[in-house]
């Protein structure tokens, strides 16, 4: 790391959370360099969402610390949250607002002035191809449109760090390509993106860094090339996480 002047976009150390008897996150260490496009991959129930929730100030950790651009998330919550744009997975939206109202709401909650918000809402809806449905209530949106409007709400205040939990789920291929373009442009101009995903191909193509998480631990982390070490990310992932069944069994499936 480049010393005091340039702290990492996200530094997580010793982060832990337990729900009842189950350890969800087991003392994770993670450093996301500023300006990187960082992928977080892991099987279902690996602790990705819990980690990201704790890193973004949505869920109080049992132990450990999180710093965003050198600001401690849990000591200086407001300051840290100003730096982050968050797309949480599996939470509802205020879906009785129209799409336009929802993004405006997110902007105003961030303390931005009305004119700036109005201009950016227009731009975001245009970029995400939602202009035709700007006045439709979010409750009547399709799953993909809902994801996109949530993404717009996360982008409105031009954060320095974007944390996106499963941003491409149920988004159509064209919109997904548009979103990737937006994210790449954002990273080129110095922003940092963290995405979690199950889709290895996508992460390998899109991200420059990756961390593999399973059962609440980081199994490998670094640049994509370091982690995959010549193999495809998917093969490397399977090798790290294990749990692949041999292809024998289910013979009856071939008997029809």
């Amino acid at each position, binding site marked *: 790391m480049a010393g005091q002047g340039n702290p990492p976009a996200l530094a997580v150390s010793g982060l832990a959370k337990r729900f009842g008897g189950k350890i969800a996150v087991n003392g994770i260490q993670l450093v996301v360099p500023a300006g990187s496009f960082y992928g977080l991959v892991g099987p279902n129930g690996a602790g990705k969402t819990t980690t990201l929730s704790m890193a973004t100030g949505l869920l*109080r950790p049992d132990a450990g610390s999180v710093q965003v651009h050198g600001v401690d998330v849990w000591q200086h919550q407001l300051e840290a949250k100003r730096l982050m744009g968050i797309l949480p997975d599996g939470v*509802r939206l*205020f879906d009785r*607002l129209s799409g336009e109202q929802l993004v405006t709401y997110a902007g*105003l*909650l961030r303390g931005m002035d009305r004119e700036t918000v109005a201009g950016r809402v227009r731009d975001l809806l245009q970029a995400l191809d939602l202009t035709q*449905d*700007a006045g439709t209530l979010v409750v009547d949106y399709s799953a993909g449109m809902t994801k996109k409007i949530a993404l717009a709400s996360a982008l409105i205040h031009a954060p320095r760090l974007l944390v996106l939990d499963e941003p491409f789920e149920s988004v159509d291929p064209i919109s997904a390509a548009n979103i990737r373009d937006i994210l790449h442009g954002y990273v080129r101009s110095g922003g940092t993106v963290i995405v979690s995903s199950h889709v290895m191909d996508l992460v390998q193509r899109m991200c420059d860094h990756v961390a593999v998480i399973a059962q609440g631990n980081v199994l490998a982390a670094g640049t994509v090339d370091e982690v995959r070490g010549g193999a495809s990310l998917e093969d490397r992932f399977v090798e790290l996480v294990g749990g692949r069944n041999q292809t024998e069994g289910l013979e009856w499936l071939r008997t029809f």
Partner: protein
Amino acid sequence: MVAHLLRLKLALLRNSLRRKPMQLVGLAIGALYGLGILGFAIAGLIALGFADVGTAGTVVVLAGSAVLIGWLVVPVLAAGVDMTLDPLRFTTFAIPMRQLLAGLALSGFLGVPGAVTLLASLGTVGTWWHHPAAAGAALVCAPLAVLTCVVASRAITSASTNLAASRRFRDASALILFIPLMLLGPIISSLTAGIRNASEALPALARTLSWTPLGAPWSVPADLAAGNPGPAGLKFLIAVGTLALLAWAWKVSLAKALVTPPHTSGARRTGGRPGFFRFFPGTPTGAIAARCLTYWLRDPRYAGGLIVAPLVPLLVSFSALRTGSTLPLLFSGVLAALLLVWSISADISYDNTAFALHVATGVTGRQDRAGRAVAVTVLAVPLGLVYSVLGVAINGSWWMLPGVLGLTLGGVLSGLGLVSVFSARVIMNAPAPGDSPFKSKPGNNFGTVLLQLAGFAGLGALVLPELILVVVAVATGNALFSWLSLAVGLVLGTLFAWLGFRVGASVYDRRAPELLEQVTANA
């Protein structure tokens, strides 16, 4: 397969109880209540056996018809009263239609309403035990009638599934249900009065009903007891035919519903409609107020409260006016306003996990509390003032106006203070966004009711000084106490509002992530 479906229903019930022990208490209370009704019904039906055959027949036919109508009407309005076995969830399993129908129909008996109806209608066997043939017929006809109830309600539900799949219909039906529910008291009292007057007409009504699908199954034993086997046979045929026809209708509509997944209707709308966001300052507080106000009008859970709050004082006045006293009208303003203010005690629970946006954007406790309070104030204060002035005007005691205003404003301010703390402290088991405001998992509301009662008690304590002054003013006829109430209401109310706001904000600032964790666990 039928046994599988029944076991599934029991397993779902057991697992939901395991997750929330408090539900068990609620279910036990519901079951006790059901048992009480059941005991009364059976005792009544057996006692009826000592009346003459004509009277017994009339009562059984009328009560039975009422039960069937109840089974028809309730599920339509309360879309999703019990959708634990929502047929749409079985779409992909390719269950033979015949078995699916049988399983769903029988599962209707595994629940408090179904079981109580079945056992109570078997009580008619007791009514006819003096007439062995009639009692035997009742043993057959009672289950037939209850099965008709269940199948009819299922048929209606699945026929309306296509309608209910549209959000607008669901929203509207949830709201419409509030009105008959609110007016239940007056409806029952005028009905009983009407029945008392029309008691000579009842046997004729029962005779007519007994030839319709509503009353036919209930009147078969009555006709046998009266020694008319001919009509009894015909009515039995009517009853069986009705059941067959309903089962067929259910099958057809279910088959259609299974291939018609929920869809969103409604045209796409372009932007440029900021709504309430236009009328509030472009600050976090203003935005929250605008959002809450939008929800008050668009979300049935809030809009229902907006319908109830003006109705309750009207009902109270209605019964007061019958006794000839207009005095209770003085309190209609504070009652209406407090009902509205109290509804936001569950504000964060109503937000559900959408509350994550407030946590993620770093909204402060002051902004959050203030925004929500402003929205409800905009609604509650005008309503309270209008009702207060109207109440004083009808009562004709203008010198009481300051006192009544003091009570209303003091009540609103104190209430705002209390809910600011309450909603930052307590997450309740509220219906999720998009659910019917009446929807509840079996018995899960017992803890919520206790909390609400505690909150009401606290509210009462805070408003006590103004209330006492108003009562003293009325009792002594001294205008001084009326003005004192205004002064005390404004001073104390402001104090409580300020205090509650400060405490609520600081609780929120400390606990926002924990609140989110709690609503997530409840969701």
